[in-house]
């Protein structure tokens, strides 16, 4: 099976968030980056499918140069090769613009299966995979936890709300957006890290792909959410804060 996995580099979860001077996004200087969580699960699913059925796993990522580090990480975990879509202005594209860029990079590969993460941790659009399917004219299923190859295509397990699930059958080629938790994630081995250095990373630029369309939705700026609720903060040393909380639980909340 020929599988493409779209991976996105996002700010590390514990990173300090400060708004940049233009008020358009967060300050990126000194920011640490990581592989988006659900993309890690998408990669894991792809690697397991390859181990079962053979084939090839290619990762594709669009973004500025720093994205190369995340691509190497995916190669170290076992992806065979990568397509890097060099782009410094992703922020000025809307979700359709990014999906068109990825679609143009993926299309010549003729994959059997395209996996994306369910949702990015920074923009949290939860859309790119579904739009990608539409742009490529392929069927899709979202919120997927397990993928099984069948005679005619795929059987997938889809998460529904409140602990319900559903099975969906669909033909290939198809696009699936992967939800976290379906598999146990692997770590890169030392050997994997070594091998990653010599794996192919093909670079294309947004202008090579020729998909410059004006956005229809613009993010105009960002702000820190203002607190609506007044939380009683209990300060002091851990011991003092703990003692204060016990008092509150006893006399105000009355649960002790």
């Amino acid at each position, binding site marked *: 099976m020929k599988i493409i996995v779209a991976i996105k580099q996002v700010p590390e979860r514990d990173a300090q968030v400060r708004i940049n001077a233009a008020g358009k996004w967060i300050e990126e200087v000194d920011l640490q980056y990581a592989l988006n969580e659900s993309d890690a699960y998408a990669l894991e699913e792809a690697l397991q499918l390859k181990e079962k059925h053979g084939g090839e796993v290619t990762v594709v990522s669009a973004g500025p140069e720093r994205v190369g580090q995340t691509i190497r990480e995916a190669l170290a975990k076992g992806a065979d090769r990568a397509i890097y879509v060099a782009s410094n202005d992703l922020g000025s594209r809307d979700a359709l613009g990014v999906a068109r860029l990825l679609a143009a990079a993926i299309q010549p590969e003729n994959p059997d299966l395209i996996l994306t993460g369910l949702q990015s941790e920074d923009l949290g659009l939860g*859309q790119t995979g579904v739009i990608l399917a539409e742009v490529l004219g392929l069927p*899709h299923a979202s919120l997927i936890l397990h993928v099984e190859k069948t005679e005619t295509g795929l059987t997938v397990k889809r998460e529904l709300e409140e602990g319900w699930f559903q099975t969906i059958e669909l033909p290939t080629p198809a696009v699936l957006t992967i939800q976290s938790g379906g598999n146990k994630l692997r770590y890169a081995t030392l050997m994997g890290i070594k091998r990653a250095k010599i794996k192919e990373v093909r670079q294309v630029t947004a202008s090579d792909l020729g998909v410059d369309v004006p956005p229809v939705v613009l993010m105009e700026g960002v702000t820190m*959410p203002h607190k609506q609720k007044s939380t009683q*903060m209990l300060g002091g040393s851990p011991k003092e*804060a703990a003692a204060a909380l016990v008092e509150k639980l006893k006399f105000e909340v009355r649960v002790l």
Partner: protein
Amino acid sequence: MSGVLVVVEQHAGRIARISWEACAAAQHLGAQLSLPVSAVIVGAQVEAQISEVAARGLPRVARIEHPLLAQYTADGFTLALEQFVKAEQPDYIVFPHTYQVRDYAPALAARLGQVLISDVVAIGDGPVFTRQLLQGRLNGSYRHVGTGPCIISVQAGAFRAGETEKCAAEVTVVSPTIDPTQIRTKPGEPFRGSSQTVDLGSAQLIVSVGRGIKDAANIPIVQELATALGAELAASRPICDNGWLPMERQIGSSGQTVSPKLYLAVGISGAIQHLVGMKGSQCVVAINKDPDAPIFEVADYGIVGDLFEVVPALSAALKAAKG
């Protein structure tokens, strides 16, 4: 038609409650822009639900019906609504942000040359739409700049489904053209996950642990706190994804919904998918090292600090208090 169109969601004959919040958002938008608001509901037979929708003070309600829409598929719903939107030409389309909407509204928008502004939490003059970024740590303001319909989905809990004046809605029935070959996926019936042996729904006291705990080996620290308090132990999704606690202890949109007297969140950031599962709690206490963590937005009491120091101190203080 020009105006605001709200898409009401139903499952097996019952209207999803968040649909009423989408109606409230649509009515807010309609009032702001002096535009009429109408509703649409999609399915095979939605006649029984239509009176409920019509009672929401909407002058016009449409039923899109087709046998191929009996079970939800992204292909079927996209086709049906594409045809309806092209015929009606609404200025705004408002969806509730459900798993179903996530699955097809982005494709519908793309087919119309548009982009869904997903998960909207507030609508300001302009209109400018606010949605959360970085899992609730930042807000972004979005504007629709193209021609054609502006399409949004609204986050659960952001708009209050209020009482509206009843009025007799004009109901129309629409039959889209759908060919069976256009539906490429075959959905199965919904089924329940693992057997649920713990019912956290009736627990009075809950200690809930998140990724701040860092490692499976540290879980006993919060287990001890739960025991000292006489509480049930619960968790955020990543803890269950990693297999550190069983799935049935997960709180949130894809786990259990709880409303205890006390919910003590330890090392949980407070992403919306977690909050929807616990915000009915009578009292929320949060322990987190990040003073800006969104969990403090719903907390009655907060301790900013390292859980590895605060939690053992709290366990000790509780044991002492209980004697």
